[in-house]
């Protein structure tokens, strides 16, 4: 095969192979799924807890990915939706004794509403201005959660302790393990729905807006509607992730949902690869585990070490985990050819 032909066959893979652009191949998906099912069986409770954390933070990163990677809108306010979802779940469970699996859909729907409404004023903003507006939302949220008149439900500054659910039907597994599998089912379902959404007519409308608003509008895409829908969907999924976190951590407090969380989610998205949904889980792993690794390298300078590691990632693979996956795919392809 000549060099010219090589270029022709490989060029599209670098940009995006449409069918797989947002997802993994079926073979890879099955391997990842089997790993996610099997690993907790051989792990300690604390590790299982960390894996649960990985799943729900991955879900929150995925939500941001739909908004930014899909519709091209920035948000530094995801912590607000996350916090609302966590509080709705915690308050419903503790103050009204509603089972946890019913609280999550309520959190999702209410956060969708909040996101959709917030998307209305955000329509007039784009790029950095939108980032600033959502930043304002993130800054306001912890204080809103501390408000006096909400205190009898939210517990004010003290926060709220949440009871961890037992495994149902007398299943012989620990609370942590049950919660892990419960979270896995929820996250997988939402992942599949998200992939479907992005591959559908609505998803194409999101991406058309991201790439060129005027052309999208000329093709009949209601730009305002789809932009706010993207905000709603993203906020709804983030709300569910927040709800899962409340159940797993067994505690909600206003200061868990500050701008720092929003920035972590943003970081997770960039490290995982903007617009690549499977990267969300890798991004989440980065924000959970890399700070620990940094601390292992140097206790006093863990922040600086983290910064250096982050810098390396951005410098070496600017498109994040997605780029690594594509390079791996090309490498495997070349091995097969030889």
């Amino acid at each position, binding site marked *: 095969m000549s060099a010219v032909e090589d270029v022709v066959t490989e060029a*599209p893979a670098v940009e995006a192979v*449409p069918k797989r652009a947002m997802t993994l191949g079926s073979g890879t998906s099955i391997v990842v799924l089997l790993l996610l099912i099997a690993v907790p069986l051989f792990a300690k409770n604390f590790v299982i807890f960390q894996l649960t954390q990985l799943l729900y933070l991955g879900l929150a990163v995925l939500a941001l990915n739909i908004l930014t990677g899909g519709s091209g809108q920035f948000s530094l306010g995801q912590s607000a939706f996350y916090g609302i979802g966590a509080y709705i779940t915690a308050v419903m469970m503790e103050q009204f004794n509603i089972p946890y699996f019913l609280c999550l859909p309520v959190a999702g729907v209410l956060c969708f509403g909040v996101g959709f409404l917030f998307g209305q004023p955000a329509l007039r903003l784009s790029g950095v201005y939108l980032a600033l507006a959502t930043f304002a939302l993130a800054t306001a949220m912890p204080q809103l959660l501390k408000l006096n008149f909400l205190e009898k439900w939210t517990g004010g500054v003290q926060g709220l302790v949440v009871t961890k659910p037992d495994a149902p039907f007398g299943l012989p597994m620990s609370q942590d393990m049950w919660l892990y599998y419960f979270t896995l089912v929820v996250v997988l379902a939402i992942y599949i729905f998200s992939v*479907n*959404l992005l591959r*559908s007519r*609505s998803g194409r409308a999101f991406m058309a807006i991201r790439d060129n608003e005027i052309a999208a509008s000329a*093709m*009949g895409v209601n730009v305002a509607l789809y932009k706010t829908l993207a905000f709603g969907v993203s906020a709804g999924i983030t709300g569910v992730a927040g709800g899962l976190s409340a159940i797993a951590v067994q505690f909600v407090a206003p200061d868990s949902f500050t701008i720092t969380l929003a920035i972590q989610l943003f970081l997770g998205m960039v490290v995982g690869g903007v617009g690549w949904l499977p990267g969300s889980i890798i991004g989440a792993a980065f924000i959970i585990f890399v700070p620990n690794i940094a601390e292992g390298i140097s206790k006093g300078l863990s922040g600086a070490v983290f910064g250096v590691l982050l810098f390396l990632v951005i410098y070496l693979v600017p498109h994040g985990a997605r780029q690594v996956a594509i390079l791996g795919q090309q490498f495997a392809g070349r091995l097969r050819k030889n």
Partner: protein
Amino acid sequence: MTQAQLAQGTSPLLAVRDVSVVFGGIVALNGVSFEMHKGQILGLIGPNGAGKTTLFNCLSRLYQPSSGDILLEGASILTRPPHRIAEIGIGRTFQNVALFPNLSVMDNVRVGTHARTSSDIISDSLRLAWVRRGESGVNKKVHEILAYLDLEDVAHTTVSGLPFGTQKRVELARALAADPKILLLDEPAGGLNHEEVYILGDLIRRIRDERGMTVLLVEHHMGLVMSIADHVVALNFGKKLAEGTPAQVQADPDVIKAYLGSKDQ
């Protein structure tokens, strides 16, 4: 041509009535009127700044005329928001190509069907049976159009990597996917070489004849306009200068003056 001539007697497909556009103190269009009939290729010509693109943007509702009206099949389009223009049958391409650069050729053309399909985010997320049926219909149509415009080889290629001439054809394919009654082409020959322009002219005529479309062509390339248009409208300084067959407009003294200047200036 005969088709167009037969249609002359009936009511026009598109009527531009006394349209004026004022930006601040500048009059970009000043009382322009003309009509388009089904099956016609109408060429809109004029020197730079004559108001061609302004008129074009009024037709696709990016600009609101200060006065006058634009009627499609007798109904005003001026109350419609820009995203509801495609559904009544007005499709367009853009002067400097406005594709969705990160999407594949196929997805670009799929977005073209947006106005002709429906869905909601819940059905899309769940991939309900009716959504799948809709998608297979869309795919069939997209494949037909890609084959028609000879784009099948690049169907899965990301648009940003394609040569300019191919991108222009993708834009045409995207516009065709919405089944427009009128196709608005904004300088389709811009950036193309001599041979490509010749092929393009042929293609536009074929689209008119085989797909029954009416075409409004805004173009600098005089050769292209004169060879394929049935009817030509010449603009200068926002006013209609002349109108008629290509031969009539070419012979019009005002048009010659606008393009070449005259001795007594």
